[in-house]
């Protein structure tokens, strides 16, 4: 394991300590366990709260997206492990300004159990909660079993649109509907070239030969659709776009945003090489591209690979996507 860290057991707490020390204008820690990140300043009474949560090791996901026009709080677990229900409950508590809280997170068993339990805990405190799950990874289950899919980078779009709706003063039902619409509009797929190492595990999450790639692999190394020889970038991009366009057809007049996302180690140079093909494939359907996102938006530490997310837009989502937002990792407007 080649990482810059101290004791593996302190990896997450030290990361959060550094994050909040470097950006006190954006983030503060909340609660006794130090695993809830909230906005630096309280939001106004009556604003709908948005809370996410999940395992560490995916920066900017999850904690990074706490900020104006985005999330209100986040409960963060050990690397690739769910936070506890109590920590999630704390995140719900700090996010509630009397108008209820949307739980907006990726579809992973542990996270779901704990967020449900957290809801039960704060129910006693009269905090109203709704839930929207991201299940955008087309490689993780068929379209028929869509609700079984894992949540990956598509959540960034949902953070953005729901965050903008909440910031604009929409109520819990409306904010939840925006988040659900965005979740439904997102399709993602990844390709992995190299693994990452969970600090406390000390060994790579998977092994892969020097000339191999795995299309559809999950962000924690979950098995993908096919493993094969590493192909030229254009071929990989085409194969990934085939899967996405199969799952959600596009046609003339459609508008989409697209994210070409590094899983960590893959540099922006390679993302831009891929973007050429992504753009060409989308435009070939007749769709037009709005606000493409190319960079590191949802990662798995030093994992090597990329993911593509296509988010189909309507007028409402397009407007919410370009509304202002501000956190240490992303600014719009």
């Amino acid at each position, binding site marked *: 394991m080649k990482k810059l860290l101290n004791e593996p057991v302190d990896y997450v707490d030290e990361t959060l300590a550094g994050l909040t020390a470097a950006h006190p204008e954006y983030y503060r820690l909340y609660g006794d*366990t130090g695993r809830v990140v909230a906005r630096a300043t309280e939001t106004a009474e009556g604003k709908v709260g948005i809370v996410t949560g999940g395992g560490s090791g995916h920066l900017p996901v999850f904690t990074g997206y706490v900020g104006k026009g985005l999330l209100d709080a986040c409960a963060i*677990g*050990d690397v*690739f*492990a*769910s*936070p*506890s*229900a*109590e*920590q999630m*409950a704390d995140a719900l508590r700090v996010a509630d300004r009397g108008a209820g809280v949307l739980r907006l997170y990726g579809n992973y*068993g*542990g*996270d*779901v*159990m*704990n967020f*449900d*339990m957290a809801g*039960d*805990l704060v129910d006693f405190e009269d905090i109203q909660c709704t839930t929207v799950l991201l299940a955008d990874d087309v490689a993780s289950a068929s379209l028929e079993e869509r609700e079984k899919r894992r949540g990956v980078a598509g959540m960034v779009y949902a953070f953005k649109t729901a965050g903008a709706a909440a910031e604009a003063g929409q109520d819990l039902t409306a904010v939840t509907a925006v988040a659900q619409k965005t979740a439904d509009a997102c399709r993602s797929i990844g390709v992995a070239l190299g693994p990452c190492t969970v600090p406390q*595990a000390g060994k790579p999450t998977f092994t892969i030969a020097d000339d191999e790639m795995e299309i559809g692999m999950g962000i924690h190394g*979950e*098995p993908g659709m096919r493993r094969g020889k590493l192909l030229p970038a254009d071929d990989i991009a085409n194969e990934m776009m085939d899967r996405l366009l199969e799952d959600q057809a596009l046609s003339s007049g459609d508008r989409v945003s697209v994210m070409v996302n590094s899983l960590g180690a893959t540099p922006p140079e390679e993302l831009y090489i891929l973007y050429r093909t992504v753009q060409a494939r989308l435009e070939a359907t007749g769709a037009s591209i709005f606000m493409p996102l190319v960079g590191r938006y949802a990662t798995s530490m030093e994992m090597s690979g990329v993911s593509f997310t296509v988010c189909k837009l309507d007028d409402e989502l397009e407007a919410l996507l370009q509304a202002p937002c501000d956190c240490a990792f992303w600014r719009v407007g």
Partner: protein
Amino acid sequence: MSIDRQAIVAAIARLNAAAQRDFEMLNDADGALGDGDLGITLSRGMELIAEITDDLPDDLGKTLLQCAQAFTKSSGSSYGTLMATGLMAMAKALKGEISIAPDRVSELTALARDAMQARGKADLGGKTVLDSLDAVAQATAGQNDEAAVAKAASQAVDDALDAFRNTQATIGRARMFGEKTIGMDDPGMLAMRTIVKALAG
């Protein structure tokens, strides 16, 4: 004899000792089919409960609720959350009672099983802790002697492990291992054996 605060305090001591004893075994079992943290989850949860033993109230509902909360604090791993869920379900049913007869064990176990099933959105037969609880609920049904209940429960967790050993896991992290799980014990069922045997004394 009946189950009251004192019996629970005594049981907690046995549970804590058993969890520490089986720490490595449970971590290893979970390491083979998951992320290797089940020993940590169980022992940490029991430790947190042990810490609050002195302050536990006579009301069995409140007592179990506090035990549940200790598990929600310990970690975000599935087992801790499921345990908390089961304990909360029992806590609700026992609110206001300070002593119960052994013949309630079957009913309470079934309550926990159902609540945990709802929480984990998993079916029975998936080779999980649910199947151990189901076996215990069935084996203890109709029994009202404390020793008989203990013996039946103890036998049931062993039988459940035997019955599911050669089936394939379909739930949780173990699912990803597919056929490899055939012939292996489910870590959560092993942990429930640890718990039930410690409770049985």
